[in-house]
């Protein structure tokens, strides 16, 4: 049962009673380490549903996906071994290469923008005393909204003919681009929506991190005559580093999977400059029914995410401080 058995398991005859001890277990007595087979049965009964899910909906498909990545298959005819052909397509197809770069560009624009703006908002919110939850309502509202509704609103805001945003930009003398149709601004447009919708979640996480920093640290810094900037650099950021690492890992994973906005904005006919890698997976798997290539892209996406997360976890020793 638990880490601390009630009956101490070191007793003189312990050596000889291993399997038969199970039978001697009285029904009403506290369950202990000797109830192996009964415990195992109980464990698998409790695990049952999620264990079936793990095998049928995760491990099975995972193995199948890797097999698919090395196969030629449209899902209906016969499957044949394709060797590394699918992976060759992933790395040589000019559109796919473009889509990888688009995804990377989205990450480069969205993740730092998101993490920085969320930190600034959280830092400011932390300084207000009682109005925190009032402001939080506004910053968090997009988080609970479906990405499709969000994209529908921004579809209007990005349309140069009717956009109040463009009208405002023109009125202050700034360029008002055709956001979604101009290849140079389309990924930026996705990043703007991504930041707008993702902000509230990060603000809440940063605020929780900021609140856990002991007031005594700041008082000590005050005694030493530290400026606001020095306190930020030497106290806040180091003590917030676990939160920063967490948000950096999760937001990079999320940004690599961006899909909903693009699909709602541009439907199935997104131009080359707007396609991201998950958009390609959906398109190639479920429109072209080329499961092999789609699976190969997805395997590469998985490996890329593993690699990026591994790098961040490896690099954490250099800058992340754990207080406990």
């Amino acid at each position, binding site marked *: 049962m*638990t*880490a601390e058995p*009630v009956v101490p398991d070191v007793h003189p005859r312990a050596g000889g009673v291993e399997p038969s001890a199970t039978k001697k277990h009285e029904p*009403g*007595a*506290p369950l202990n*380490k000797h109830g*192996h087979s009964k*415990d195992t049965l*109980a464990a*698998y009964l*409790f*695990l049952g*549903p*999620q264990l079936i899910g*793990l095998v049928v909906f*995760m491990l*099975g*498909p*995972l193995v*199948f*996906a890797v097999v698919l990545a090395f196969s030629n298959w449209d899902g209906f005819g016969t499957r044949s071994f394709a060797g590394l052909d699918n992976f060759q397509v992933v790395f040589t197809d000019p559109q796919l290469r473009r889509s990888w770069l688009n995804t990377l560009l989205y990450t480069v624009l969205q993740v730092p923008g998101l993490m920085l703006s969320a930190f600034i*908002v959280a830092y*400011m919110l932390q300084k*207000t*005393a*009682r109005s*925190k*939850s009032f*402001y*939080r309502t506004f*910053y*968090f*509202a997009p988080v*609970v909204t479906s*990405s*499709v*509704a969000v994209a*529908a609103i921004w579809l*209007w*805001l990005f349309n140069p003919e009717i956009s*109040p945003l463009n*009208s405002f930009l023109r009125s202050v003398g700034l360029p008002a681009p055709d956001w979604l149709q101009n290849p140079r601004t389309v990924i930026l447009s996705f990043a703007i929506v991504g930041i707008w919708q993702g902000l*509230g979640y990060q603000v*809440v*996480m940063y605020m*929780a*991190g900021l*609140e856990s920093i002991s007031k005594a640290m700041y008082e000590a810094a005050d005694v030493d005559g530290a400026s606001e900037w020095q306190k930020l650099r030497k106290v806040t950021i180091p003590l917030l580093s*676990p939160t920063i690492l*967490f948000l950096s890992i999760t937001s990079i994973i*999320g940004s690599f999977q961006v899909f*909903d906005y693009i699909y709602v904005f541009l439907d199935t006919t997104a131009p080359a400059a707007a396609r991201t890698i998950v958009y390609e997976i*959906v398109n190639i*798997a479920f429109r072209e029914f080329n499961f092999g290539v789609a*699976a190969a892209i*997805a*395997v590469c*996406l*998985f490996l890329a995410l593993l690699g990026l997360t591994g790098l961040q976890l490896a690099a954490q020793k250099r800058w992340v401080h754990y207080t406990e």
Partner: protein
Amino acid sequence: MSIVADIAVHAVDEMAHEHKPEIRKPYRPSRIILHVLLTLGALVMAGPFIWMILSSFKPLDEIFIQPPKILPQDWAPENYSNALAQADFVRGFWNSIYIAVTVTVVSVLTCAMAAYAFARIKFPGEKQLFMVFLATMMVPGQLTVIPLYIILSKIGWVDTHLAIIVPAALFNAFGVFLMRQYVRGIPVELEEAASIDGAGRVRVFCTLILPLLRTPLTALGIFTFLNQWNNFFYPLIFLNSEEKFTIPLLVNQFKGAYSSDWTGLMAAATLAAGPMLIIFIIAQRQIVEGIALSGSKT
């Protein structure tokens, strides 16, 4: 990943302790600047929603007015009746609610069960199996959705709600991990007392563990419900016929079918976003906590 998920758990604990009484500070100029900046930020966040709601009441010919007007000149509530006539939102709501509720109830319960096994029962392979659960949290949904589609189409589940409900309800590695953290926090003595009284594991789980897990179960439930309610990726791939569509699919379909009906689209978006926004304003704290539990959104 476990360090990372611990931070999410920690964040929620922190939130539970906010609202400490604070001494009112005198208003200095820096505080006024702070509030001005935060209010500007709040306007940027609320602006698109305000635009959505007000535009949903505009007659179609008003959308080309330059510079755009914030308030409708004439109010056109018929945008809503038109949207409702063009797409079956009532049915969409029912589909969304029924999918999200089923997944949430089953998933939360089975996660708690699995968590109880991992936290409290010793069995061979326990550690290894738990590591497998943890490791799958790194697998992107886009990788498993392709084989899943092939498998489910073979058994005839494509274009049925089962394809959305069953995988989500029966597998949630993050939920298992999260609940395990909380089960471990329950004092062992409580269970020992119960088992001396002759209660079996099932009874201990139902009458002792589940009630004690109420708060984290609610948080996980809110998170699961919202994820399902707003999910677009899986329904888009698995559902084809309109009468099975969830709300996000209906809005997307409306956009495609009536691409020039901008005000109708805003009415549809308001119908989609409105209920959740209202619930959010009412139960803000619980919802924020529930979502803060989420490691990565899928």
